């Protein structure tokens, strides 16, 4: 028989706090749409 084990949640204490007003960088690709999306 297979026993289901509980998986512990990832530790939260290692997350680096983001400064106020931080805007994550845009994904490198694809780039911006200049006119419209088809």
């Amino acid at each position, binding site marked *: 028989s297979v026993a289901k084990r509980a998986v512990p949640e990832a530790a939260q204490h290692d997350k680096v706090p983001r400064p106020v007003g931080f805007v994550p960088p845009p994904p490198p*690709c*694809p*780039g911006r749409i*200049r006119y*419209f999306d*088809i």
Partner: protein
Amino acid sequence: VPAAPPAPLGCDDPESEAAAEVALNYINGQSHHGYKFALNRIEDIRVVPQGPNNDIIFLELDLLETTCPILSPTPLANCTVRSFAEHAVEGDCDVKLQKVDGILSVLASKCHSHADSSEDIRKVCPDCPLLARMNDTEVLETVSAALNDYNSKTTDSYLRLLEIGRAKIQYHPGHVVVTEFAVGATNCSAQEAKANVGACQLLPEDQSNFGFCTAVMVKAPSQDLQVDCQLYGHQVPAPDIPLLSWPGVTYAHPGQDTS
């Protein structure tokens, strides 16, 4: 300790946009049909280093059709991208470039263009006329009638059809056929062509001997035909706008390295 590899280029980085501009000029320069294309989006970029100051760049570009015929002397920067409601045409291109000592050149390109789906247009604009097939009988009739009409009224060279660029047919509220087509000047006057049109030959392939016409044929409720032709030899050429300068990037004229 070896130096860490440089961060991959983003699609909106100045270097990527410079490469896309070189690629776009190359693509438009190689094309002899339809309309000029403008850059809508850089889909992807991959840089494969070949050695010091020598990179191969693979670009994926999303282009949009403009209103400028490919033979038009209007610089791309002055061309208007067709709106979505005009039944836009998109171009997908894969381009391979080389960058040696900062100089970009195109090695190869492969493009595929297609019109947006009718369903997409209908969702946004239910009454907008859709692109018609180039070999549609009504389209061919309109082009023929328009060219005959223009030639019967002009005292300049007799014009011959080069290609139909696009056509739209509207059925409601009226029945209207709109066509756009490229023309070439011949060595005949319109009067000479009446006597023997078969003897009229296209003038040498020079931009000044080409032109572009728009025809609107109203078939219902009442019949009407309007033709407007612009010959490129009869207009003041717009000055070429210099390529944008990006820091550290020099441009080469593309076109000699196609594989």
